[in-house]
């Protein structure tokens, strides 16, 4: 009987929540406006036109990436590649010698991908660990100078990378770390202002009762941070991770300054130097194929973590 009750009750709950969520959506989507037919047409018309404009570059990228080379230079362009050259992707990632001029001695692309992956994974893990630790202190502990430190952290958002770029370069030079991946990995284990802020905002929404109960049981602050706060903050951590992934994957200026031998290049450097390997004419179909492959991990990640991504932007307190 009890089970039966529970089932009916949870069903009811679900129904109720469904109803409220629908109401909520109407409420969110602007029920204050009375949608006439003309108005609807205008809204969708605008949406379609704008969406077409925003998607146009993607279409052009995919279209070009799939063309045979002789169609790339045709005016007017072929709007749909025929035949579809899937092999362009393979070529863009492997071409050496025949089509390329100087790159026969260059390392294969997977080496760049490996470097980028290493930098990205290190950056994501480092950012998550360090930023969450700092955020925990600001969300849960009291200490002298707390506000000063917090304002200090936020104001570093204003410091352009260019300002610290030259001195940092000299530091790396003296450490003999130029042309290694260390300068692109080590500095990301010290917290980043924006993520500290974001995580602190999220940690503050977790009830303090959990901490107090754990303290009573003799847990240390580290236990609370690692065993209570972190597991409860998965959505926020996911958001930070996705942001950090896209940031490190696309990072350009850092690797550009530090790396000089091809073995150490990242994918973004590879993409920028892509045309260097060719005589005069840029093989745009291969260039676009390479650009597409390099962007793909970010696009895929975004599709699968859309919620976390969008949530991350809104955690920061703009949503009441």
């Amino acid at each position, binding site marked *: 009987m009890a089970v039966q009750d529970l089932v009916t009750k949870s069903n009811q709950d679900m129904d109720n929540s469904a109803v409220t969520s629908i109401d909520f959506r109407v409420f969110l989507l602007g029920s204050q406006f009375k949608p006439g037919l003309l108005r609807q047409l205008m809204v969708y018309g605008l949406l379609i036109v704008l969406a077409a404009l925003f998607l146009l*570059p993607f279409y052009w*990228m995919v279209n070009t990436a799939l063309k045979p080379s002789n169609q790339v230079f045709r005016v007017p362009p072929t709007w749909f590649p025929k035949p579809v050259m899937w092999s362009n992707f393979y070529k863009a990632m492997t071409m050496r010698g025949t089509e390329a001029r100087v790159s026969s001695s260059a390392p294969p692309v997977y080496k760049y991908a490996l470097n980028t992956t290493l930098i990205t994974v290190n950056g994501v893990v480092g950012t998550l660990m360090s930023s969450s630790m700092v955020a925990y202190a600001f969300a849960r502990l009291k200490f002298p100078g707390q506000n000063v430190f917090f304002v200090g952290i936020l104001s570093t958002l204003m410091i352009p990378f260019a300002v610290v770029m030259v001195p940092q370069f000299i530091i790396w030079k003296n450490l003999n770390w130029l042309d290694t991946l260390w300068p692109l990995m080590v500095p990301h284990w010290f917290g980043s202002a924006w993520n500290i802020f974001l995580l602190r905002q999220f940690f503050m929404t977790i009830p303090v009762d959990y901490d107090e109960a754990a303290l009573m049981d003799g847990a240390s602050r580290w236990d609370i941070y690692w065993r209570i706060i972190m597991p409860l903050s998965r959505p926020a951590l996911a958001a930070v991770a996705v942001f950090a992934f896209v940031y490190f994957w*696309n990072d350009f200026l850092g690797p550009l300054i530090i790396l000089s031998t091809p073995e150490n290049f990242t994918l973004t450097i590879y993409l920028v130097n892509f045309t260097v390997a060719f005589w005069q004419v840029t093989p745009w179909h291969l260039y676009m194929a390479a650009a597409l492959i390099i962007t793909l991990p970010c696009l895929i990640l975004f599709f699968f973590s859309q919620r976390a991504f969008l949530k991350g932007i809104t955690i920061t307190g703009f949503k009441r």
Partner: protein
Amino acid sequence: MSATTNLIGRTTTRRKRLREALTAYAFISPWIIGFVLFMGGPILASFILSSFRWKLIAPPRFIGFNHYIKMFTTDELFQLSIGVTFKYVLVSVPLAQVLALSLALLLNQRIRLLGFWRIVFYLPAVVSGVAGSVLWSWMYHNQLGIINNLLLLVGIQGPNWLFDKEIVLGSLIVKSLWNVGVPMIIYLAGLQGMPQELYEAAEIDGAGEWVEFWKISLPMLSPVIFFNVIMGFISGLQTFAEPYVMTGGGPDNATLFLGLHLYQSAFHYLKMGYASAMAWVMFLLILTLTLVQFKLGSRWVYYEAEA
């Protein structure tokens, strides 16, 4: 007796507080160390560096404020790059806000497939930096690019987007508008969080949508607009990848952004001291602009709690 317990109680709370503070410092120590090593230290160092002439190979030579004097008197490239950067930021940031807010308003209508439209407008923000710049160079290609070919279909001979010094900055601005996803999402969140009572009250008073937008939505959103404008300025002033990849600063230095000029001075010409001086000017510019905006912001930004 009670005095002693009191005393013990006080020392234990004090000890507790001390322990808590020490724990807290331990937790924030990564940031403190990182700040000293990678931010605060380098900023001071770059100020000191800026008073030396140093080309890495020869030992540095002290020249005082000469770099700063040179920058504002004889270095035309520097002044030009400041102009380019300002023009870009002053046009692209407001345009981006108008576009982002319009898109957010559109998405905030009662529409089907909200998730789908949101992805469409957000997606370009994921393709920022080098890949996006490479893609847009190809879009802007004079004969082979899609933009001029579409224009040809309606009988217009399009300009040479990236090689005409009169319009190249405009081309970069248009490209930047494609990456408007982040502010758009923030505006959308702001719109969705609006208290509905205000709109209901306005409707009872017979206000139309237009009035509602200007008198309710916009003032209520002003903190969000303020935030987006500041972030837009800070990142706009540091623009680097787009000009580096798409134009290399040309044609005729028409897109020589401050960030690019700085990079070239430091790493092509190895003028470490001069680049540091420029970096400091950039820092002061961002600082001043942000402070000015905070000052101006107090006039037009509406915070609910104050009312």
